[in-house]
């Protein structure tokens, strides 16, 4: 009898323990931690890390920041994979970091949900928000002009060309599409295509919009229009009619940058990130960079930017703002962009670092002014997913471009709904 009641007691105890394990958090930012023992405020900063160099630079920035602000410590967390999935889940669960990276393409959707802290009221004269390139900051604004994030840097696309191959074929660096087309045909050999193309909306939106058409109208897909199809048709023709272009997957490569490095493409449209990649992986390669050739007489390129944003549920907003304003401020941005990992989003820093005159980065910096920022309303992820799927079939010659894009547009819009 005694043992029995003891057993009941022990099983009840187990239950209690489980229940205790299940409850717990009160729903506010948890592992961000509050004040540490010595009275310092600890804030959490989450981001991804694309290279060891990036991590090193950020560490440098954070050390400088903590030196300037001895009452704040920053806990840096790297989310290795599926950044947005992890981040959204943590935000839903009330475990979001205080400050985090946010890609411009995801920004409008997240701003709409109200999980981001509006930053206008924090900005003061010293911060000088007018210093940022206008089209880099636009994706992080809502309709009322409230700003939710400040870019840490950006990259644009430029035309990377293999000097050796161009010399051999006796071709000049093309400045418009007609020249590019001719050059690509000349440069194509048995193992090499003239132009490596990433058949994705992220890389080709500015071409699609170089005519009269817009690929996204009022948050809905509109890339099936005649204007967009006509603007993109030459790209598809370059592969299917002239056999002078190819996608990375056709060549067993991961990206156009890899195609270029391996000598499988004589020209590619790649970004700033490609420079350290080429220097490290293919150090012997002789290449040049120029601005993207004009399409339909209009100059264009894409701009990719990532901002620092603040969690609306953060309990340490003052300290968080201090961190953001340091990281995106003149001093912090200089540390960040000095090695050329990203280009500085502030005009003053760009000037100070002299990238405009740089042989490799000059053309990329020049693009910032006329670039199409890779961000277009909250539904862009759905829109570009459908575009990419359909554009690839057209690019590979399985469907006509018109048919493919019309289907893609319909599917995207039915997914978006009202």
């Amino acid at each position, binding site marked *: 009898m005694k043992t*029995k009641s003891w*057993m*009941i007691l022990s*099983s*009840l105890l*187990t*239950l209690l323990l*489980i229940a205790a394990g*299940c409850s717990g958090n009160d729903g506010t930012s948890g592992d961000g931690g509050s004040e540490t023992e010595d009275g310092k405020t600890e804030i959490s900063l989450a981001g991804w890390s694309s290279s060891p160099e990036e991590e090193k630079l950020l560490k440098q920035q954070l050390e400088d920041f903590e030196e300037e602000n001895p009452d704040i410590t920053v806990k840096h967390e790297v989310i290795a994979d*599926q950044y*947005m*999935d992890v981040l*959204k*889940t943590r*935000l*839903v669960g009330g475990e979001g970091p205080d400050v985090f990276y946010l890609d411009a393409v995801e920004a409008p*959707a*997240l701003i709409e*949900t*109200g*999980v981001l802290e509006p930053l206008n009221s924090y900005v003061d004269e010293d911060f000088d928000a007018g210093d940022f390139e206008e089209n880099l900051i636009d994706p992080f604004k809502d309709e009322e002009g409230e700003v939710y994030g400040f870019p840490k840097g950006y990259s644009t696309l430029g035309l990377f060309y293999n000097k050796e191959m161009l010399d051999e074929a006796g071709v000049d660096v093309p400045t418009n599409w007609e020249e590019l087309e001719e050059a690509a045909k000349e440069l194509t050999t048995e193992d090499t295509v003239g132009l490596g193309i990433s058949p994705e909306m992220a890389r080709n939106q500015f071409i699609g919009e170089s005519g009269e058409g817009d690929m996204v109208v009022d948050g809905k897909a509109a890339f099936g229009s005649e204007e967009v199809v006509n603007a993109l048709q030459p790209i598809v023709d370059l592969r299917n009619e002239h056999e002078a272009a190819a*996608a990375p*997957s*056709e*060549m*067993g*490569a991961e990206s156009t940058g890899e195609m270029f490095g391996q000598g499988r493409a004589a020209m590619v449209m790649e970004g700033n990130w490609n420079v350290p990649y080429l220097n490290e992986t293919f150090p012997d390669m002789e290449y040049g960079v120029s601005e993207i050739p004009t399409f339909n007489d209009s100059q264009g390129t894409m701009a990719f930017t990532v901002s620092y944003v603040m969690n*609306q549920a953060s309990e340490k907003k003052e300290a968080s703002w201090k961190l953001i304003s340091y990281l995106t401020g003149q001093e912090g941005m200089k540390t960040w962009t000095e090695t050329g990992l990203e280009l500085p989003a502030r005009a003053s820093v760009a000037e100070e670092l002299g990238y405009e005159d740089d042989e490799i980065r000059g053309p990329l910096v020049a693009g910032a002014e006329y670039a199409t920022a890779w961000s277009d309303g*909250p539904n862009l*992820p*759905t829109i570009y*997913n459908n575009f*990419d*799927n*359909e554009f*690839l*079939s057209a690019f*590979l010659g*399985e469907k006509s471009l018109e048919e493919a894009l019309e289907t893609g547009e*319909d*599917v995207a819009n*039915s*997914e978006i709904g009202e």
Partner: protein
Amino acid sequence: MERAEAGSYSKVKSKKKRNYTRLLRSIIQGYGFMLPTILVLLVFILGPVLYAVFLSFFDVTLLGGTVLDYTGVDNYLRIMEDSRAKRALVNTALYVGIVVPAQTFLALFLASTLNAGLKGEKIFRIIYFLPTLTSSAVLTLIFMWMYNQNGLINNLLDKVNLPTYNWIGDPNIALYSIMIMNIWATAPLFMVIYLAALQGVPKNLYEAAELDGANVIQRFWHITVPQLRPITSFVVIMGLIGTFQLFDQSYIFSGGSGGPSNSTLTVVLLIYQYAFKSLGTMGYATAIAFILALIILIASILQRVLSKEEQFN
């Protein structure tokens, strides 16, 4: 008289009561012991399943304050109009239709060769079984290297003058690449099950057939296959359940997009995309998940009914 009756009545009552408390105590005791397991099941399995079914009738917004909007069966109706959902269903059906028969047959074939009593049987058993021990994510990554345009497989094909393929990038091929990989990886597991069952087939049946002049192939079709029918039924059902849930391979293959051109988009991958990639479609994702569960249930029941009918013939 009355008092005596009343006395015996209360006695009975107290006996009943004692029985009742004993029963109650044993119930408490029994469930007390099971409590940890029951709780785990409720919290991590049954609860989420029921909650998912519940969510499938709502429009769910999670970010920025949870909002549930009751929409009735709208989420289910939406599946009918969703061309990506249709594509995912077609892809999955094609995948199931090819992989399940192929891996079942291959497993049976491998098992019978191993059971034939050849030399080095044990070594072959180990070699055959190795793929099953490899994690499917690692396996997919290795296969992606081999499938590369300039990879091992294309090189081998080229050497023997066979046509090469763009295994990963061609929308017409990509799904078949995953099929080949998966058949290779799962068949050995079922092979082991078949192998165990083969040991139980009476030897005298083979001897009798041999005396009657039946050759190897006849013995296989007329003795081995019918004797293994219950095992085949199990293998097919497990295969159905596993293949309908194809996710990790196509996820890694396409980097989560289901590309090229939706050719590797499976139902579970679509559920994942709606649940975690796009905002505010969690309810719709749970509706698709529920439909997938129904499809698997129906397929399993059909399979059972069909194999039972055969047995009665």
